[in-house]
């Protein structure tokens, strides 16, 4: 049961690596001699309106989406972990303030918040800057829920008998935190990482799809989905649906892995 997600994860990592280092064609190179072709021996997933190889763009875009997703997960969980531990362990005003802020962030529908915050950032910037901005936006809006979970875990760990005993023996706060509480947060952080990762990849895909992420020429999964918006073409050119279909296993693998991890850690969302 647990070997399949591992195998799928390996495939995802390989895909991301291939996207950076070895695509069959240059994902940006246009070939006006071969425009809007269906899948064939030279172009496995066909070519787009500018004659760019869709398979190369799928690999390269996928690695950007996956790397952005992974980095955003690290950033958001780092933020959530810091704030959650602060709130749970310091208590008092820290707890009240951080949780009130979390409530504010949880009180606007996710997608509107994502796009609203993106709206406050510069629109026309270079691709690398776009990636960094996207990361920052995703992390900024999604720390609240994991922070709340981590706070709960810290709070219940801090009320255990062993912590009280350690305090009775004269242990310092830092010692108590690192030795008795830190370990408890590992399981919930791991489970949250698996739950958040596909959502963040999706967030990046959605932003690019709406034209607020990577630009048209830079390959991204959101950009590849734009072909599906041209409904008048879909009836004739079925292969435009291929990138969307091939993205599904990646999300399914993440869902499976998250389920297993959550079941193992015993922490619910």
């Amino acid at each position, binding site marked *: 049961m647990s070997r399949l997600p591992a195998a799928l994860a390996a495939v995802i990592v390989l895909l991301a690596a291939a996207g950076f280092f070895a695509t069959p064609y240059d994902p940006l190179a246009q070939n006006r001699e071969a425009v809007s072709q269906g899948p064939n021996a030279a172009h496995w997933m066909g070519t787009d309106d500018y004659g760019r190889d869709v398979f190369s763009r799928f690999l390269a875009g996928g690695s950007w989406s996956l790397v952005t997703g992974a980095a955003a997960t690290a950033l958001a969980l780092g933020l959530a972990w810091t704030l959650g531990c602060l709130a749970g362990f310091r208590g008092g005003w820290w707890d009240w303030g951080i949780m009130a802020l979390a409530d504010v962030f949880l009180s606007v529908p996710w997608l509107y918040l994502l796009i*609203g915050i993106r709206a406050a950032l510069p629109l026309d910037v270079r691709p690398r800057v776009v990636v960094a901005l996207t990361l920052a936006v995703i992390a900024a809006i999604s720390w609240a829920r994991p922070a709340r979970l981590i706070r709960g875990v810290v709070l219940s760990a801090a009320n255990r008998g062993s912590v009280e005993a350690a305090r009775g023996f004269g242990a310092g706060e830092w010692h108590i935190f690192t030795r008795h509480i830190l370990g408890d947060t590992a399981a919930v952080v791991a489970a949250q990482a698996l739950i958040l990762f596909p959502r963040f990849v999706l967030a990046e895909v959605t932003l690019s799809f709406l034209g607020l992420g990577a630009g048209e020429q830079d390959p991204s999964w959101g950009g590849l989905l734009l072909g*599906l918006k041209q409904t008048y073409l879909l009836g004739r050119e079925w292969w435009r649906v291929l990138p969307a279909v091939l993205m599904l296993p990646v999300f399914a693998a993440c869902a499976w892995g998250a389920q297993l991890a959550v079941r193992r850690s015993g922490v619910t969302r």
Partner: protein
Amino acid sequence: MVFLFRRFLLATAQVLAVSCLSFAMFSAAAGDFYSAATAADPRLREGSVNALRRRAGLDRPLPARYAAWLGSVASGEFGESIAYHLPLRALLGPRIRATLRVALPALAAAWVMGLLLAFAAVRFGFGSWEPGAAAVALIPDVVAVSLLLWVAVWAGLPTGTMTLPVVALAFALLPGIFLHAASSLRAAIRLEFVGLARSRGLGGARLWLRYILPAAANPLISLAALTAAGAIGASFLVEVITGWPGLGPFFLDAVQARDYPVVQTVIAGLAALLALCNFAADVLLYRLDPRIRTPHV
């Protein structure tokens, strides 16, 4: 009652905090509506752009603008769009109605189907449905709606009517509702008094409707409030992809034109809607669940 009153105050404070934060965020933003316009049209001169800014009140300090916005909300106009030179009430009304025409039927359909499927899964023991539903739940809305649109075009179905967005939205909401309903029903049938009722020969509709459903209702009522907000969020994408003239495309246009009054009002309005849904769920729970009414059990 103290519980409800405190919840109400908290909800109000939350909405005010969201509107304050979004105001501060957008006033710190790089550029505004007129900087987007100047970039598009080189004939515009610096002086005339500044005059336009002054006329729209963008040069006033932040607290003054926030106060003006609050006053405008209190008067029922909800601020003024810079791009349209119209009060937002006139602009938002038709869009909100269009969004609700998609979101409400989709919500109803998703809840009916979700509850029925959850009942079937728990009653007849189709436990293997749940990992499948979890996997389906993670299919990104963008991909799912695009694929659905593709299937509709391929099958020659009409794409301009409201059927397609409603079906797409219902399918986007269904897996989450099914998963939560199934897990709370499963927790409810394990309760002692349900086992007792069953051992005394109770079964069928009476057992499910009078014993199990009320016991499982508590988390489902909270979920109802959450899915209402989720429906508005998911509807955003559905509307953008299928070209439905609702709140989603309007908001996206406002973002791209940097029409910040629109963006602010929509975000604050959605926060208010979500707070209202949560408060309604709290009131309902307070009426239905005696444990909440009795403090310190």
